[in-house]
């Protein structure tokens, strides 16, 4: 089996991740933050250690500002829906995943907010975003790496722009975190959202949200928080304010083990390896007639897409699947990216690499593609 669908979820998981899950279930099986017996406290301590691990990775000071959610979609919904107000105007990139796009479109459909779409690929990003700025603009939402083309936005430039214009900055780092070095402390970002099961190599079931401040923000989901239970409303303190209900301790433990795994290898080494595979894959695919490839302009990163003039992406993915090669076809839950790339209405075949992929697997993929396109 060759797995080239790491943008959907990384596979396989490192050995340390699997043993961390087992340890969490067997040794930390209580409910974190719900009791004071040994198993509940062991679970709570494990979750707290994971908060510290994430805070260190993001280079932010306060572990209590790391909120664990079920997934990145939940994090993005939380960030967007707690911040918008009647009349908000959102600046939204054209490479957003439905995780952020759909809540925005729903609010706009209800007539509560308005939004403008800017091109994340514009050569002069700042001018492009500025072009859409209105006096009522208050939120900037941007996916740092397109899950379709791998196009990457300069996080520093976004932060500076948001600060200069007083915009609340919400970043989707689903394809970014774990694939590159965090270049500077991310405490200038208002809301930073990421999954645990992609670049951080955790299992599915846990996402994260770094929230710079909860001041003035309403609660999101309400329910048990393990503290201040007599009060009708959720506690004001983070992270409990946004963590109603039982946390997924095994998934959170896996995320921490994944971060430790990343630290051992080093994000720069990961980026180097994935970029080399992406570059080689782009070159090989481009050598086929009638194949069009979409990738980062420097052919780096870990995500690329391609399509064939005659063969439907679903057919190519199916043929590759029949040969034991896992890729994804279709829209990848990012309709705007296809509109801007011109890959409507069929979508693309997406290849996405992880740390366990090899050049040998690329050779097998290349041979398979030769067979498929010949047939």
């Amino acid at each position, binding site marked *: 089996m060759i797995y080239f669908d790491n943008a959907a979820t990384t596979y396989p998981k490192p050995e340390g991740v699997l043993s961390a899950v087992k340890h969490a279930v067997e040794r930390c099986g209580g409910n974190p933050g719900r009791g004071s017996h040994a198993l509940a406290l062991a679970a*709570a*301590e494990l979750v707290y250690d994971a908060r510290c691990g994430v805070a260190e990775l993001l280079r932010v000071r306060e572990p209590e500002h790391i909120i664990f959610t079920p997934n990145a979609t939940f994090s993005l919904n939380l960030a967007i829906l707690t911040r918008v107000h009647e009349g908000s105007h959102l600046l939204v990139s054209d490479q957003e995943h439905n995780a952020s796009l759909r809540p925005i479109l729903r609010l706009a459909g209800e007539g509560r907010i308005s939004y403008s779409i800017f091109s994340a690929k514009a050569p002069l990003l700042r001018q492009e975003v500025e072009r859409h700025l209105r006096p009522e603009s208050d939120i900037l939402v941007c996916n740092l790496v397109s899950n379709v083309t791998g196009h990457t936005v300069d996080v520093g430039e976004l932060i500076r722009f948001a600060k200069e214009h007083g915009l609340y900055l919400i970043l989707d780092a689903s394809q970014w975190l774990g694939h590159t070095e965090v270049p500077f402390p991310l405490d200038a970002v208002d809301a930073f959202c990421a999954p645990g099961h992609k670049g951080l190599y955790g299992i599915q079931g846990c996402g994260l949200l770094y929230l710079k401040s909860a001041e003035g923000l309403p609660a999101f989901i309400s329910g048990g928080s393990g503290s201040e239970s007599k009060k009708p409303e959720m506690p004001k303190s983070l992270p409990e304010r946004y963590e109603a209900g039982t946390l997924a301790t095994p998934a959170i433990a896996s995320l921490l083990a994944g971060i430790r795994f990343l630290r051992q290898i080093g994000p720069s080494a990961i980026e180097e390896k994935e970029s080399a595979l992406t570059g080689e894959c782009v070159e090989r695919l481009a050598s086929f007639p009638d194949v069009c490839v979409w990738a980062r302009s420097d052919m780096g990163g870990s995500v690329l897409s391609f399509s064939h003039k005659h063969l439907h992406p679903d057919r190519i993915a199916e043929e590759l699947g029949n040969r034991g090669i896992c890729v994804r076809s279709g829209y990848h839950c990012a309709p705007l990216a296809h509109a801007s790339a011109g890959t409507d209405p069929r979508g693309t075949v997406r290849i996405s690499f992880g740390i366990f992929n090899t050049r040998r697997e690329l050779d097998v993929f290349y041979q398979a593609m030769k067979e498929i396109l010949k047939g």
Partner: protein
Amino acid sequence: MARETMIVGSVTYALKAKKALEKLGIRVRVVKGTPNESSKGCLYGIEYDIRHEMTVIAEMRRLDIPFEHRR
């Protein structure tokens, strides 16, 4: 040895306090406050040797952790 309990609110604050105090060599146990001790409901706290009282208070203030002594 006499022990003192300081209520800090959430389990996250209690663990933050515990980790910070342990770095200073102070052994701490995380405990749970019972509802009849608080108008707010369940709360967590830390239990420590009373001889470290001043250090614990200073550390809570440094970490910006709200606290009150268990009555």
